[in-house]
């Protein structure tokens, strides 16, 4: 009868554990609740959580270097960064950059690395154009030796090793995957061309270059590889393969398609391969070791570079260091953003508290009427309100005119109140004031007047009664309003943009600049992430000091 004698889990009347039957009973209720919030939940996930996660990811993501110059990055791994890399690295760079130039991705890499080292952008841009010229030397030489190398069909047959040859599918899929990474897309469908396994062994560079060419022709250009003459890079790769005496020996005993052409090419003298010099000729900056340092530093797929940049630091071969003084801007901007947001919050408290107090102590009807006045700014466009402050505060503006007219300010020394911090603080205090008044008002409304009366009856004068009894109870409202205003202020963009000038801009203006003008999204993401972290830390600190359950919106 009674469950109290039962030592195990409590059982329901039908013998199932009580917890389980409770869960079952509540399940329908929970599902219904979930269904009700599902639209909002999905909306928030898609439009808020997902972009934030993406932003966090962008601030460390750096796959572009590895995707664009995979072989160069590989070669650079053991480079000691003391002098300009050797020929091996430049050869890898040639093939990487050739493909990137064909895919027109080299300029993106240039702009990416230019964030870290200015000048790299033009280096990649100009050299990208020269890749064909460098390769053409070998194409001309090979075609002179054997005109069959001009034919697309010669190449297809030679590289596939004939109809019944064993294919090297892995080489092809690697090249397709590389191209996918480079183009940041995925290709569907089977490869039209597969390199032969035997020929890939004999001519590894040629096979790789041709596979890259074939993949590009088929998937990016949408053309048939059988009809297209290979890139200059393929000829250069062949020349590179033929440089090796072992290859020549292997060719001598090779019997697959195009063996004769290859033997002919192997017998002839090809132009020397000097990629290093060719690059120096293309752009002398390739001989500048600092550019190579930058490439090596930013070669890993994830980087702290954006974050370091966002806190005025940089990576150097010697490790992480502060930027030189004239290049530091974000520290100042963060400090300024914090300082001005605090100023705005304090001004809002100072101006809003008495208003909220009066509203809370007036009869409801009057309070509602006055509340409309408080909310009135919400009905006006933000741009209009901000622009109105421009009219008010500028040197030929209303306030200066009045001050001059009153004789308080000389005509030639009109006050500068706009396009600086003062203007931003004034305009933003005005705009954010309702967000302070509303929570304070709703909290104050819940404080019965009898507390003040009680305090006075106990002997407290007006000030003591207010300060010891009323004010502590209104702190939750101040807290809620302050958090609201501060967080809105710290990320505010439009008002500082319009009235901030150069000294009154916020970090958000810089983020917007990197998003829309400099297109350095990684840095924008890092700055945004730091901003988010600062807000969260302050929120946490507020919770520790004041307690978040002390925040009430009413």
């Amino acid at each position: 009868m009674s469950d109290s004698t039962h030592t195990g889990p409590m059982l329901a009347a039908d013998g199932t554990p009580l917890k389980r039957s409770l869960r079952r009973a509540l399940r329908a209720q929970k599902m219904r609740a979930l269904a009700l919030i599902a639209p909002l939940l999905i909306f928030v996930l898609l439009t808020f959580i997902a972009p934030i996660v993406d932003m966090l990811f962008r601030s460390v993501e750096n796959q572009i270097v590895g995707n664009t110059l995979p072989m160069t990055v590989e070669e650079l791994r053991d480079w000691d960064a003391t002098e300009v890399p050797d020929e091996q690295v430049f050869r890898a760079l040639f093939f990487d950059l050739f493909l990137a130039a064909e895919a027109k991705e080299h300029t993106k890499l240039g702009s990416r690395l230019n964030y870290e080292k200015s000048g790299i952008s033009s280096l990649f841009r100009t050299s990208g154009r020269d890749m064909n010229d460098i390769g053409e030397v070998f194409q001309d030489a090979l075609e002179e030796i054997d005109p069959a190398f001009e034919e697309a069909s010669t190449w297809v047959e030679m590289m596939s090793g004939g109809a019944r040859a064993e294919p090297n599918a892995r080489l092809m899929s690697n090249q397709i995957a590389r191209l996918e990474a480079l183009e940041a897309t995925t290709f569907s469908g089977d490869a039209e061309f597969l390199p032969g396994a035997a020929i890939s062994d004999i001519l590894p560079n040629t096979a790789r270059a041709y596979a890259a060419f074939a993949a590009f022709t088929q998937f990016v250009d949408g053309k048939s590889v059988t009809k297209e003459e290979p890139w200059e890079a393929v000829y250069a790769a062949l020349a590179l393969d033929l440089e090796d005496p072992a290859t020549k020996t292997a060719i001598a005993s090779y019997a697959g398609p195009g063996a004769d052409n290859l033997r002919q090419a192997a017998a002839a003298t090809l132009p020397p391969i000097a990629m290093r010099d060719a690059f120096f000729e293309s752009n002398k900056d390739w001989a500048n070791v600092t550019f190579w340092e930058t490439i090596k530093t930013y070669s890993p797929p994830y980087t702290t570079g954006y974050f370091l940049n966002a806190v005025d630091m940089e990576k150097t071969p010697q490790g992480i260091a502060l930027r030189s003084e004239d290049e530091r801007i974000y520290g100042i901007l963060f400090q300024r953003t914090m300082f001005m947001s605090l100023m705005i919050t304090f001004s809002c408290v100072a101006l809003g508290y008495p208003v909220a107090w009066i509203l809370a102590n007036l009869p409801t009807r009057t309070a509602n009427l006055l509340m409309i006045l408080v909310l009135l700014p919400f009905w006006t466009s933000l741009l209009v309100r901000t622009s109105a402050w421009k009219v008010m505060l500028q040197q030929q503006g209303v306030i200066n005119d009045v001050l001059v007219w009153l004789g308080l300010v000389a005509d030639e020394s009109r006050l500068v109140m706009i396009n600086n911090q003062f203007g931003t603080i004034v305009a933003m205090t005005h705009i954010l004031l309702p967000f302070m008044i509303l929570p304070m008002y709703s909290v104050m409304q819940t404080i019965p007047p009898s507390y003040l009366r009680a305090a006075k009856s106990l002997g407290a004068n007006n000030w003591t009664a207010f300060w010891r009894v009323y004010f502590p109870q209104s702190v939750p409202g101040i807290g809620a309003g302050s958090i609201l205003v501060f967080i809105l202020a710290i990320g505010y963009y439009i008002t500082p943009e319009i009235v901030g000038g150069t000294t009154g801009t916020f970090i958000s203006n810089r983020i917007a600049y990197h998003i829309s003008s400099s297109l350095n999204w990684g840095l924008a993401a890092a700055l945004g992430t730091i901003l988010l972290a600062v807000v969260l830390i302050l929120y946490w600190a507020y919770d520790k000091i004041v307690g978040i359950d002390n925040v009430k919106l009413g």
Partner: protein
Amino acid sequence: MADTGNNDAFVAFERVQKSYDGETLVVKDLNLTLPKGEFLTMLGPSGSGKTTCLMMLAGFETATHGEIKLDGVSINNIPPHKRGIGMVFQNYALFPHMTIAENLSFPLEVRKIGKSDREAKVKRALEMVEMGAFGGRRPSQLSGGQQQRVALARALVFEPELVLMDEPLGALDKQLREKMQFEITHLAHNLGITTVYVTHDQTEALTMSDRVAVFNDGRIQQIAPPDELYESPKNSFVAQFIGENNTLEGRVKEIKNGIAVVQLDNGDLIDAKPVNVEKPGDRTLISIRPERVEFNRDRLKPDAHTLKAEVLEFIYMGDIFRTRLRVAGSDEFIIKTRNAPDQRRLQPGEQIEIGWLPEDCRALDAPQV
């Protein structure tokens, strides 16, 4: 009302009027004096002006006209915090952000009393209301009755000579309320504090007070000790407001030997004590307490007038029986009888005769129509 001229009055209202809107008077010409140590209750329906009077005394409302004196000094222009009057509020108004001890310490702190003194007084005050163990708690952690005790202790901790209480027991359940009534009265008497207590609960007023001032329509209708108020209401409002009461309307037939013979509207005659009727022919409302109605003919005087009555309903209420009768055209005539072994239980439908001692029945002014 007549109660002025007392020179050693501790609290005095002199011709006090109060208006909020400049058109109607909430308090009309209030005259009231309290000697030191008295427990006075202001009783009345909502809107009768009793709370306004209390607020004027506390200093939260200003009198529109007249003077309020405390210990012979006019306090009209003294702000509330300098009046030194303890007050217990309807919702207790314990400061939620302070602990109980801090709440009690507050009036001592603003009086700049030293720390050790403060702690001793707080401890004593809490022990006085049997809340000694609760000093560290927050008001929200206490039950209603405990909060009530703390509010009381806080109003007393700075040893005021006058304590005001504004319906302090309104939020408590019946049992607790009765217990607290008892405790408050004892405390007030033991400490010798002058108390002004506002309530709309007449039982509370009767059980607690030395004197009760019945308010209606901005005036004191009667101010008297509880027994006098109950047994000798001065007018029909007081009679109807205090306790349960049977009323019958009629006209005075004659007044002789201090007994008025009243002819009820159905023609029946009955004896009553004339209170504020003057001459034969006056309209009157006679008032008789349910427990003073007698239906045993033997217990009435031989020549007493009686009325015919029909029993409509018999209700067993434990300690008493409550019987509803139809008397002189009224279906709402109630009699109460004690539950005793020999007590007769009336049956519905029974025809009986009822009567009373003339001094128990009061012929009052007829209600204004």
